[in-house]
């Protein structure tokens, strides 16, 4: 350990930027959430009114945004996390060459931009016969008329979930792959002597317990990824709100109120609720993967 020198000098550049662009915005969001603010006049203090309105008056939030967010985040967060673990665990049992190539293929969607995601998936799900999925279904006689997937309330949400899962193998996936590969092989031998028989038992009694810290890191990354991915619906349908509010998530609701209706105070209250939900997910992961 180095005892002399000036730790604060080393920390200062990062901490200043961290404070200004992460801490301050969170504080502003919390502050504004108690006000009525239209971005022109001074914010007026209204107490908890925005929160009360959000949970009692905002029918779009209650009927569409909240249930959509819960469904989407449950499937893409924990679901995406479980999928990434399963893929990482499977890949770890291949030899180095094929494993590296496959890991790269799995990770490649994370390298694409939101715009590229929109471009490619829009072409696949296009509502006319030129759309690839429609062409396929027409060609094989499953349907007689093209389906307007991206304007149809039944299809939008499942499509958004598939696309979000597609792009969910990010940094967390890489961390888990490294984690599975680093599990000491002797532990599996010891476990088999102790009577652990199936692979599934090995996963739960050996693999996961010996890589809990990586699991937690990956879980946090999955949660953040899931909420970041909330913009996919707007990218695919090119409209906010999404048609029939079918894929309207809290992230889109914030943008709708903040930048389209300029109700910044109300939008900030939604932001604060969203941060609370993200924190809840992350605290749950901490409990699950606490290293003791």
């Amino acid at each position, binding site marked *: 350990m180095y005892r*002399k020198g000036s730790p604060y000098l080393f920390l200062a550049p990062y901490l200043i930027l961290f404070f200004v662009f992460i801490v301050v*915005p969170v504080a502003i969001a919390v502050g*504004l959430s108690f006000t009525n603010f239209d971005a022109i006049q001074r914010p007026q203090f209204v107490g908890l009114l925005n929160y009360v309105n959000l949970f009692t008056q905002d029918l779009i939030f209650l009927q569409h945004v909240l249930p959509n967010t819960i469904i989407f985040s449950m499937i893409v967060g924990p679901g995406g996390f479980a999928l990434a673990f399963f893929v990482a665990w499977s890949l770890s049992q291949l030899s180095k060459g094929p494993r590296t190539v496959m890991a790269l293929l799995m990770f490649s969607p994370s*390298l694409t931009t939101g715009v590229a995601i929109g471009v490619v998936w829009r072409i696949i799900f296009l509502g006319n*016969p030129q759309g690839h999925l429609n062409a396929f279904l027409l060609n094989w006689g499953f349907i007689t008329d093209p389906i307007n997937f991206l304007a149809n309330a039944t299809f939008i949400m499942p499509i958004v979930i598939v696309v979000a899962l597609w792009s969910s193998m990010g940094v967390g996936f890489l961390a888990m792959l490294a984690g599975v590969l680093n599990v000491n092989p002797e532990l599996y031998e010891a476990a088999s002597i102790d009577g652990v028989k199936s692979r599934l038992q090995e996963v739960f009694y050996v693999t996961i317990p010996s890589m809990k810290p990586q699991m937690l890191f990956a879980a946090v990354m999955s949660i*953040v990824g899931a909420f970041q991915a909330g913009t996919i619906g707007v990218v695919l349908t090119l409209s906010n709100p999404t048609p029939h509010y079918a894929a309207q998530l809290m992230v889109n609701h914030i943008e709708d109120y903040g930048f389209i209706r300029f109700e910044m105070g109300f939008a900030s209250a939604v932001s604060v609720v969203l941060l609370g939900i993200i924190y809840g997910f992350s605290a749950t992961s901490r409990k699950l993967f606490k290293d003791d």
Partner: protein
Amino acid sequence: MTKTNPKGFAKNQIPLYLYLIPLAIFMAAPIVFIIFHAFKPMDELFMFPPRFLVYRPTMENFNALFRVAAGATVPVSRYVFNSVVVTLAVVFSTVVTASMAGFALSKMHFRGKIALFTINNLALMFVPVALQIPRYMTVAAIGIENTYFAHILPIVATPVIVFLIKQFMDQVPDSLIEAATVDGAGAWRIYLGIMIPMVRPALATGAILSFQMVWNNIETSALFTTSESIRTLPFYMSTLAAAGGIAGQGMAAAASLIMFVPNLLLFIVMQSRVMNTMAHSGLK
């Protein structure tokens, strides 16, 4: 029994391949599709039934992309220039500030160290898209709207990069630092002479994560700038994609490909260093 990292192929790997290969195809297909689409001539873009493959590859879409841009108020070269400047500045600043902070958090003693690391871990959850309004207000208050700083400063502080570099630095033996201290080395010499060379994989990982964030970033252009001449390439691409139409599709695919290729190449070059860093990514 689970056998990780086998030397070569064995029969018991067949079931794994049976589901991993289809999944890998599903993951990679949209990207391969973008590549084909970008090179399709107009008649193949309009073709019914649409085809996945390209039959007569052309550069038409790329040419059109640059032609449209030339007719607009700002030439596409300006967006490219802005993107390159901003990307270089962000990647460099991120790696420097994060490695300095990581060094202090990993190897120095000071009051509040554990608290700071805990706060940083908490900030791993930070989702910028949820806080667009206050972030905009902060940028406006500092007065850096419509400057390069508006693209650079808001995204330099990245908690996950500090976290990964700090974890990697924890692996550097303290005895090395003690020996250097005995020889009279100061904090800066230890940082530059010992830590930086020893944690190169983590720095490379930090650089690549930062590159992905800034190279693909639309938010800073959309929120923090109003002048076209200061905006970046991904933002321009997003306006093309939104313009729609079949011809727009081809151009948007070409644009997406231009954005994607540097990302992919960088990752391929750095992948072993990234995996090396990820081995120390445990969060407690």
